[in-house]
């Protein structure tokens, strides 16, 4: 499982081998129990089961079992999209019109037909509801959507949006989405957030009120996916049951239970006793199941998988605050930090690999020939002395993230050991306070890890390097050259030419030390040896339960 020295392809081959070998061992000669209950434990509870107002991973994994989307990611290659409710689709040459042909014969769990009207209703509902998950804004390229989102969201505003004709039903099984401007990530967006609800079901249960969330739907979801919703007991579990009429055929397990337990040792005991099939351990708890020297499982009945995610950890600065506005100071911090040591000691060379850019390995635009930001304490010291700033730096981290804490401690030691009159104060905030302060631009110096929404580099550059992007704006970072390249890449249809632009963007960003990209996160999957069919997706938004098999013991 040691993969630090491996490149992009080595990493991917390793991933493929680890998954294939594990399941070859696990599945050989065993009989699938089709009456089994598949129980997986999550550290935290899902927030909402309304697919049009849920964005946290805990909810999305459950929603993926209940609902169908227009398209979905292919598990064999996440850069490929395959049809889900849509049998086929076409995109106009100007990239403004997306036409989807819906599979005939799809049925919701209540037996009603899924048609193009439900697809239109679902997309319109996501925009008109404009819930706190912020999904509507992701669809702002749909005709009329941005005007509606910026409006007071009255009924008149909703009528204006509908009149704009962003989503049009052509016939019972054809729907077209019209965009205001081309968006190369639009299909990826649909693979994440296009869950189809039944119009009749929603209208009979609270309906659709512009700007209002529907509490009933958020607790009583009904879709057309492989599992039907049974119950949600707050603080305890969500139970789903196999939908026998699912268009791809019924799932391998009869029932799915998502149980919510935060304590790692309790999760492990449940797994070892067979009460749970898959558990949700953090890297910091990996020593409970793995020999960290060999990477082998400590228990014969437990199998452990680690595979890279499209998720990266980095250090950020507030450009509006001195001394972070000085590129030499940022470079000094980068050079002071022993990233390889961090990956070896904290991530055990198993749960993370070094990256050279904020675009992670696995994305087609990953710039292979850009060197990593090297650790060089002597040069770091010289740079700090050249800047001449002394005092205390406040580094802020999330209190619930052990990796982040270790990184901060190592950062503190590496800077203070240089003896340049700088001390580092680590401030731990709970997650929502951290996010609130980050959003308000109140943080000076912080570390964070973030997952990509799709394998498209556009999402990463949009968030991290575009001046108005989510993270860049929190850093008060503005760079017109990067902005121009970002928009040029977004409009470029040729993949090679686009990748060249992203390469240029990363070279610029690294030279400016906009952030310090340190490591790519890996996922830790811990499950019983009686479980098979696990699909490892680097996007984390995977529909797991449909493929899961449980073997008779």
């Amino acid at each position, binding site marked *: 499982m040691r993969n630090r020295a491996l490149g992009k392809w080595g990493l991917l081959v390793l991933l493929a081998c680890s998954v294939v070998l594990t399941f070859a061992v696990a599945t050989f000669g065993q009989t699938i129990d089709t009456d089994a209950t598949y129980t997986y434990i999550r550290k935290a509870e899902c927030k909402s089961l309304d697919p049009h107002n849920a964005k946290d991973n805990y909810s999305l994994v459950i929603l993926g079992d209940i609902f169908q989307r227009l398209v979905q990611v292919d598990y064999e290659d996440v850069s490929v999209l395959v049809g889900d409710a849509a049998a086929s689709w076409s995109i106009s040459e100007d990239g403004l019109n997306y036409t989807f042909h819906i599979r005939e014969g799809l049925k919701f769990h209540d037996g009603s037909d899924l048609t193009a009207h439900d697809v239109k209703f679902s997309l319109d509902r996501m925009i008109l509801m404009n819930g706190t998950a912020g999904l509507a804004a992701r669809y702002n390229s749909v005709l009329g959507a941005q005007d509606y989102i910026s409006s007071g969201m009255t009924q008149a505003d909703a009528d204006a949006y509908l009149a704009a004709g962003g989503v049009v039903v052509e016939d019972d099984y054809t729907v077209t989405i019209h965009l205001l401007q081309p968006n190369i990530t639009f299909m990826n967006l649909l693979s994440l957030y296009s869950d189809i609800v039944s119009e009749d079901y929603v209208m009979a249960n609270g309906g659709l009120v512009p700007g209002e969330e529907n509490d009933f739907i958020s607790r009583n979801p009904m879709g057309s996916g492989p599992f039907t919703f049974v119950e949600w007991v707050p603080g305890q579990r969500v139970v789903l049951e196999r939908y026998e009429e699912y268009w791809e055929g019924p799932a391998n397990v009869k029932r799915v239970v998502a149980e919510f337990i935060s304590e790692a040792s309790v999760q492990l005991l449940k797994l070892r006793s067979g*009460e749970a099939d898959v558990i949700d351990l953090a890297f910091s708890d990996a020593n409970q199941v793995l020999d960290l020297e060999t990477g082998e499982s400590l228990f014969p009945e437990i199998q452990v998988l680690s595979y890279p995610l499209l998720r990266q950890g980095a250090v950020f600065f507030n450009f509006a605050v001195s001394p972070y506005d000085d590129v030499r100071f940022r470079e000094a911090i980068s050079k002071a930090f022993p990233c390889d040591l961090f990956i070896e000691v904290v991530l055990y060379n198993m749960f993370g690999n070094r990256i050279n850019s904020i675009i992670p390995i696995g994305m087609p635009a990953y710039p292979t020939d850009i060197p990593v930001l090297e650790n060089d304490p002597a040069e770091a010291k010289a740079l700090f002395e050249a800047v001449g700033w002394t005092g205390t730096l406040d580094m802020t981290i999330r209190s*619930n993230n052990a990796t982040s804490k270790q990184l901060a401690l190592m950062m503190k030691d590496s800077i203070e050991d240089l003896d340049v009159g700088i001390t580092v104060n680590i401030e731990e905030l709970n997650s929502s306070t951290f996010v609130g302060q980050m959003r308000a631009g109140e943080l000076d110096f912080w570390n964070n890890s973030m997952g990509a929404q799709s394998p498209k580099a556009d999402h990463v550059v949009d968030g991290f390097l575009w001046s108005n992007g989510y993270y860049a704006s929190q850093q008060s970072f503005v760079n017109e050259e990067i902005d121009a390249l970002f928009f040029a890449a977004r409009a470029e249809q040729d993949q090679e030419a686009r990748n060249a632009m992203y390469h240029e963007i990363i070279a610029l960003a690294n030279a400016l030390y906009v952030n310090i990209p340190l490591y790519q996160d890996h996922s830790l999957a811990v499950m019983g040896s009686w479980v098979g069919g696990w699909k490892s997706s680097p996007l984390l938004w995977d529909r797991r339960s449909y493929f899961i098999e449980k073997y008779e013991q």
Partner: protein
Amino acid sequence: MIGFLVRRILWIPVVLLAVTVLTFMLSQASGHPEAAYVAEDAPPEVVEQVIKRYHLDEPAVTQYLWYLKNLLRGDWGISRSSSNLPVLEAIKEYFPATLEVALLAILIAMLISLPLGIAAALNRNGWIDNVTRVLSLAGVSLPIFVSALLLQYFFFFKLQQAGLFHFPLGGRVTLGLIIDHPLKRVTGMYVLDSLLTGNWSIFFDSFKHLLLPALSLGLASTGMLTRITRTSMLDVLNEDYITVARAKGLRESRLILTHALRNSLIPVITILGLRLGRILGGTVIVETVFFFPGLGHWAVGAICTSDSASIMGFVLLISIIRSLLNLVTDLGYSLLDPRIRCE
């Protein structure tokens, strides 16, 4: 008596108002309450809408008045840490579990401390008294989380290791069992509901899950209750009417059970009422150790995520319960002993 009652009842809203002021002030300390409502990368428009919807951009006093107005209308806010349930709904969901633990804990405390206290009083300075004294001291000194972990260690780990019958590590019921034997909700208390609906599998299983959390909470009250029972019993046994009864040749067992015990229980009952309030507060720790999905578990989750609406709801609920318990205890005290007048 009625005047006392009216005065006490009128004080309760004042106390609760003070509690809401304090909790509201603390909730303002985090600085960014809107962050608890929106997704991490929610666009600025959505954040703005949330700020407006919940009046978060208005002065603190105005926000407090909005909060109070909503509170009186029965809208205690949304519990963002618990699946976006309205806070009152969340309380309805979690409170029965906590009440179940608390009631069993108080029952356990009584069953242990009353006989021990009486035995210690009857054997004053004897070996039973000395042993009881040591046990009481240990009970008072031992933090709840330590006793909870010790109970888990012995009654789950050690018994399981020995291949013997063992108690569950935690939770409220065995997952597979409740799925196969769904429980109809009557009160929300699993043991009571399963009893009422004749769901025996769940009855035994949920009782098994309840026992260790209740025992660790109950043990925390046992030490003090035992000492108070002993002291009170000794006071009563030294009363003249006991000497007279004994001189008249009344049997010792009758003397203890009918004459001494009833009178010695007056202070014990007072303490019991107050302990129930403390036990409810103690569930925060016990429910966390035993991952028992009650109010305490919910409150810890809310604290970890800065879910101020849930935290304020929890504190307000506990304040209401404790205020009522204090009132009932005072009234019960005067009813049990007519010599005591409420003034």
